[in-house]
């Protein structure tokens, strides 16, 4: 249950991809029949992807994934327009690849404003308005948070940016194909998209760049300029074909899948609510229902992961990270470090069934039963309140 990290490639996707590894192996940039065949397949995928967000196919640029797309969007825009404007606005709960990119840009002389979020993980539109300056070039705010699933008010943000004549980029790695997105209605100028989060292959992603009015970006990679002179490198045809198919399937199944996951997540939360001192991180309703981030007070996250043997999840605890720091997202929400260390993210997705939910509930209950009696902080709690041991 770690679908927010990645997803398995859907069999229907894999089937489409396979011929492009072998008989249809042409270089899409070659000017002969094999090349044309590959180029046509890529153009078809561009259509499948752009259709999901109401964009034009030639507004899609392929990259190696959402990390590259985010780097390209921010550094590309900043690099091209730096002589005119030098201020960027983003949010404290963004993915590391956006935050680290902003840190790099700061070293180059850019000014960055990091918007705060409330206890539910939402930004304040008022704060965004106040943060805008005449020198503001770009606002970058993610659509769905990867750790806690909170959905930001993208349409409202787009409107504010449009009114202020500021570019709006959104990291939609956790949102594309999962919640309805419309770049026109939402005034989105740039959007980062990932394939492996929507049952497509790893190693490919895209950046939507609005055509009209034209937006210029300085390339990150020098080379043949295969993607509209903005991104160089031979396009990986099989990955792109898979990405396109995955996008098409997500679009077809978006509302059905949304309702199904909402049902599963409600069922899961209903059973979990029996356990005392378990807290849902992030807004209760303005969230992607496939993401359930819970803090199990008095149980460290990694120990919890180890105890839940039949399910795979991830944790915001420091003990699970390479850096030994707890989640910057939970910290931005103002959640106590103690509770941040106890957080577990359950990810539901296309292949999660109600049987999986039942198994997860059993695993959770068993783990809590094993670990809380071992916890010195739970012991204190029991002594203080005279509560029954759970």
């Amino acid at each position, binding site marked *: 249950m770690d679908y927010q990290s990645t997803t398995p490639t859907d069999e229907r996707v894999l089937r489409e991809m396979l011929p492009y590894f072998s008989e249809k192996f042409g270089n899409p940039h070659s000017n002969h029949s094999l090349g044309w065949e590959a180029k046509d397949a890529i153009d078809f995928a561009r259509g499948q992807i752009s259709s999901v967000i109401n964009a034009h196919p030639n507004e899609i640029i392929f990259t190696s994934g959402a990390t590259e797309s985010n780097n390209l969007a921010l550094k590309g825009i900043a690099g091209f327009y730096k002589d005119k404007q030098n201020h960027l606005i983003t949010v404290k709960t963004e993915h590391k690849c956006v935050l680290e990119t902003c840190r790099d840009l700061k070293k180059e002389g850019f000014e960055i404003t990091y918007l705060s979020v409330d206890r539910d993980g939402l930004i304040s539109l008022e704060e965004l308005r106040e943060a805008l300056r005449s020198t503001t070039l770009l606002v970058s705010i993610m659509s769905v948070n990867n750790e806690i699933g909170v959905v930001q008010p993208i349409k409202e943000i787009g409107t504010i940016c449009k009114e202020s004549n500021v570019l709006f980029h959104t990291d939609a790695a956790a949102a594309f194909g999962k919640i309805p997105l419309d770049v026109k209605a939402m005034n989105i100028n740039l959007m980062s998209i990932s394939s492996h989060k929507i049952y497509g292959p790893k190693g490919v992603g895209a950046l939507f760049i609005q055509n009209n009015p034209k937006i210029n970006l300085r390339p990150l990679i020098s080379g043949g300029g295969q993607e509209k002179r903005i991104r160089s490198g031979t396009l990986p045809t099989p990955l792109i074909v898979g990405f396109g198919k995955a996008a098409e399937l997500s679009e077809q199944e978006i509302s059905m899948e949304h309702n199904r996951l909402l049902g599963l997540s409600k069922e899961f939360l209903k059973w979990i609510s029996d356990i005392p001192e378990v807290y849902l991180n992030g807004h209760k309703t303005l969230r992607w229902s496939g993401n359930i981030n819970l803090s199990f007070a008095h149980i*460290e996250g990694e120990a919890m992961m180890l105890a839940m043997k039949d399910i795979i999840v991830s944790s915001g605890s420091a*003990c699970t990270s390479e850096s030994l720091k707890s989640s910057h997202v939970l910290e931005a929400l103002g959640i106590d*470090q103690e509770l941040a260390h106890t957080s577990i993210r359950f990810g539901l997705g296309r292949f999660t069934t109600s049987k999986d939910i039942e198994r997860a509930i059993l695993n959770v209950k068993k783990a809590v039963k094993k670990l809380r009696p071992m916890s010195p*902080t739970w012991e204190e709690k029991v002594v203080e309140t005279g509560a029954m041991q759970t």
Partner: protein
Amino acid sequence: MTRYSPQIIDHYENPRNVGSFEEGEKDIYTGLVGATSCGDIIKLQLKINSKGIIEAAKFKAFGCGAAIAASSLITEWVKGKTIEEALKIKNTDVTGHLSLPPIKMHCSVLIEEVVKKAIDKFKIKCHP
């Protein structure tokens, strides 16, 4: 999550001497180290007789698999030892025995510290 050695998994799966001594039980000396903000708290209780021999040990831990395993291991190691012997246990002994990954080194440091804290309580009471 960290990839753990079989020794750690064994102690994590079947932790030895989990719990607290009954309130009012005599000759119990408690050490407490760590902070919830760091993600690790270890409580170690030692039952030490008047000759300075550790008769029993119990632990409780809020922390990762390594912290729990290291706590469990130390309760086995100190049992039957004199306080002088117990104080000779180094954090590197714990890391070596459990094959603790480098990133979990601090758990073994906490263990050395908690043993010392519990024994300090004994020393203050019996040899002030």
